[in-house]
């Protein structure tokens, strides 16, 4: 269960990071 906590954290971090990178690219292209 402790591992699951770390795994959930990593998953959430990865999703947030990829979304922000996509936002970065979008802002660069759109503005």
């Amino acid at each position, binding site marked *: 269960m402790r591992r699951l906590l770390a795994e959930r954290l990593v998953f959430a971090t990865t999703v947030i*990071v990829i979304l922000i990178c996509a936002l*970065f690219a979008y802002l660069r*292209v759109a503005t």
Partner: protein
Amino acid sequence: MLPYVARRAVWITVYLLFVLAPVLALLMGDLPPARDFWTEFSSAIAYVGLAIMGLQFGLTARFRYVTEPWGEDVIYHFHRLLSLVALGLVISHPIILFIVDPARLRLLNFFQAPVVARWAALSTYSLIALVVMSLWRVQLRIRYEIWHSTHILLAVVAIVAGMIHMIGWGYYLGDPEKRALWIGLSIFWLGLLFYVRIVKPLFILRRPYVVTEVRKERGDSWTLAMQPHRHPGFRFIPGQFGWLTIWGTPFKITGHPFSFSSSAEVGDGRVEMTIRNLGDLTSKIHEVPAGRRVYIDGPYGAFTIGNPADMHVLIAGGVGITPMMSMIRTLADRNDKRPVILLYGSGDWESITFREELEALETGLDLKVVHVLVNPPAGWKGEKGIINTEIMMRHLPPPYRDHEYFICGPNPMMDAIEKALGEMHVPLAKYHSERYSFV
């Protein structure tokens, strides 16, 4: 002090800020001409990948206020998995660029590629080597100390080479302010490493301990009693652990994590660690002479006794008894009569570490000890096999979800118990576990 949940939220926010803010800062001020979406996306993930790699030094720096709300084992697992994420991001960067413009594939020719691309290759190859060595250290038969030194070296090369590549490419970091920000960040990351490997060991070096006794215990285990030498020592909470360096100085990468087994109420700073012979460094514990100077980095860990009103269910397997023993001894010293049930799995009757002391403590505390033996002696009327749902339900009073559960033992046992507690509908917040094989 904020509750653990709030502190966790604060640290998640701080972590994401450190990873994402420097990337978003690249969008400020004067900008170079925009390229297509995927090229910009690939640049962003490379910067984020580098930031994650740099912050890895902070995750393993053993900052107590960072690790406390999580537990060291969670932080180490997070660190390991994040290295895979960083590798994925860093490798995706060139792959996306090759798909967008296949002509860039010529950059893969290391000897003919421009210098700036060679730095990128060096960074990526170092990161791949680092991850491969970490995932398959045991299979590759790499000694822990050799692996650890190489791990640090490869991490530094990956970060420095990645940074040189980004500055050399000069697209976003052509801007002097943004360049200064990212160079400053790199210095900060390497500063974390300097702190862990140089500054912190200096502090530990000034606070040595002296071994006062090496005591044989049941179950091929030895207890090291250690007294602080010319300093007051530290206070720990029962269930916590320390990194012990027996041979060498704190500068050598030889520290191993062991739980304290003594009571937290000992007034003179003396601490004890009980260590089972598992064939590695632990096989030489009995050779440690009394009077030897050793070093302890600690205390660490969030695996500690909770609300006095709740029944405490301690579930130990083998040498996983050590943090539980610290809890029980501390409760005895405090004359704390909270109800405690210890489910204790061992190989056989003769190898039950602390067997006699636990029997004695049962009379003075509200403590019930249930031994579960894999190889019980003839005529054994107690529990047999490994601790499972049926055994727990036989000995614990319902409602199960109201108790506090503490679990420590070998990984297969921990997995089985965590599954069993799930079946008993015990909420996650009610169980606390610490894996002693997290490094």
